[in-house]
């Protein structure tokens, strides 16, 4: 049975790679391997060199003292350490402003995501989602300026004064809201940070919520659930691990944000319990002092940077563990 073409007898060399097939794959493999390695290399070098620079500071000040005391007196020596380097005030400023940010951004993001997913008229949904995402494209220095020049005087200061006036005298929690209310403080930085991390949290929360299977939503409606009950008992419950993960990502952003926070947090190298205290954050302190810093202080600032990196890594790891734990509890509801 001939099909018109001559059937050539089988030649064992037919099975060998020919032409570009012989070198294209190995070449590509080598290039991508190099790319992968170089990322690791850069990261390794960065961690290595900063830690090396920071180590003398940690030794001089004492690791515990560096992280738990708050007296920071920059020295001016060129080749030895003479100052006092307690970074707690900055660590506290970073943590408290980020905490305020996440406490404001999280409920807002959940509400916005639910609105986009379930409530907004269909025609608006994409526009709305896109608009929220656009917030992420605003440069942070613009947030800082806007916060300083309009948002703070128009909204945040009146709100702060109101809160401080009403809650400042309440026993125990009053300490948190104690006045006076300076023009820049933890609370103001936290609020602007909240707007800055809103897009990422909303984007993820929205995505996770949208993945709720339609048939489970129907099942709940079929049992007489109202819209709100469907959102709460089906969509939110199922999206919980994803939302926790999203908040941690947002928190990571907030911890590292520099310029806007430096402009809004206050600038004092001290810390206070009140959310209206004008303090400083780790990144903010580095950014605002490194230019005039003497060599020994540069090392101390690098040590602050290492501390910030460690905190961010810890938050990220916590996020993973949390998502994983909650995911196991909630069955397949994990991401």
């Amino acid at each position, binding site marked *: 049975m001939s099909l018109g073409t001559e059937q050539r007898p089988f030649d064992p060399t037919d099975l060998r790679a020919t032409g570009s097939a012989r070198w294209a794959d190995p070449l590509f493999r080598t290039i991508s391997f190099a790319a992968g390695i170089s990322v690791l290399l850069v990261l390794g070098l960065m961690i290595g060199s900063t830690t090396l620079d920071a180590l003398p500071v940690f030794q001089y000040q004492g690791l515990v003292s560096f992280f738990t005391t708050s007296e920071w007196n920059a020295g001016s020596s060129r080749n030895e350490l003479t100052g006092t380097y307690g970074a707690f005030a900055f660590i506290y400023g970073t943590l408290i402003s980020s905490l305020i940010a996440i406490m404001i951004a999280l409920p807002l993001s959940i509400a916005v995501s639910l609105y986009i997913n379930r409530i907004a008229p*269909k025609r608006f949904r994409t526009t709305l989602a896109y608009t929220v995402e656009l917030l992420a494209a605003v440069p942070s220095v613009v947030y800082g300026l806007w916060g300083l020049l309009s948002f703070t005087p128009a909204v945040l200061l009146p709100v702060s004064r109101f809160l401080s006036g009403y809650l400042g005298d309440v026993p125990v929690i009053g300490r948190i809201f104690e006045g006076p209310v300076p023009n820049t403080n933890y609370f103001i930085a936290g609020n602007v940070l909240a707007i800055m991390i809103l897009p990422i949290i909303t984007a993820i929360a929205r995505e996770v919520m949208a993945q709720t*299977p339609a*048939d*489970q939503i*129907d*099942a*709940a*409606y*079929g*049992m*007489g*659930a*109202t819209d709100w*009950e469907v959102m709460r*008992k*089906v969509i939110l*419950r*199922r999206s919980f691990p994803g939302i926790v993960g999203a908040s941690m990502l947002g928190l990571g952003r907030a911890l590292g944000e520099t310029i806007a926070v430096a402009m809004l947090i206050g600038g004092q190298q001290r810390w206070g319990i009140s959310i209206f205290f004008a303090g400083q954050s780790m990144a903010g302190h580095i950014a605002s002092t490194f230019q005039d810093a003497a060599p020994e202080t540069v090392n101390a600032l690098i040590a602050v940077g290492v501390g910030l990196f460690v905190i961010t890594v810890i938050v990220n790891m916590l996020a993973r563990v949390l998502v994983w734990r909650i995911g196991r509890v*909630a*069955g*397949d*509801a994990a991401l």
Partner: protein
Amino acid sequence: MTDPDPESALDARPGLQKRTVYEMGTAPVSAEVGAAVFDVEHVDVRYGGNLAVRDISLRIPKGEITALIGPSGCGKSTLLRCLNRMNDLIDGASVEGSIFYHGENIYAPEVDPAEVRRRIGMVFQKPNPFAISIYDNVAFGPRLHGLKKGLDDRVEKALRQAALWDEVKDKLNDSGLALSGGQQQRLCIARAVALEPDVILMDEPASALDPISTLAIEDLMRQLRGHFSIVIVTHNMQQAARVSDRTAFFTVDMQKGIRVGELVEYDRTETIFTNAGDERTEAYITGRFG
């Protein structure tokens, strides 16, 4: 057009304009059936302006099993979803006409669809348990409506009614998704039953199941008959013949190139299957059509 069989009080009434006259708000009583749970009157359903089913009128008896059969696209699911206002959830769906549930028009403006759905449970074609434990799945409805007293008993009773209790009683805390397809579907039935609804609507509940699970579900329906009124959509003629008391046959009308679902015939199941009044019904049942 068929003349209503005098034997049957539940006449299919396609196009029948003259209706039994009764006062609004009182349950129409049929001599033979006792009470009707649904009175569907001249219902048209549109999706985004396109007519999907036209002028459906039928009475669904209380405490019995009513099967809706017919070729694909004839509007069985559409009608079923009208009965508990699930169609409200579909964008662009609109319902005209009236559906009386124990004499109350569920499409009246003051009616809360959530209250309707609570009393008229639904089992879907594809098993759709929540990704939570078996117990929580069954308890979902009762918890939703604040029925927290005696919850354990309620869950057990529902699982027994769904013939699932013996299989899951030792693993109530396992995920509902860790069950087989047939078990999941029975879990969904238990979940619907746990609310002690008055009616259960089932849209091809066994179509995703193997023959043994299918028979289990059919057994279950026979046991639930009497406690609940059941309306079932099925593509399986034998299934309709085996389990249902009444059968409604729908078809797709192709006038002017537009496909619209219509009710052809509605009668006792044995009449439909042995002595159909309309040749389209007979053709469909014997497999010459559809």
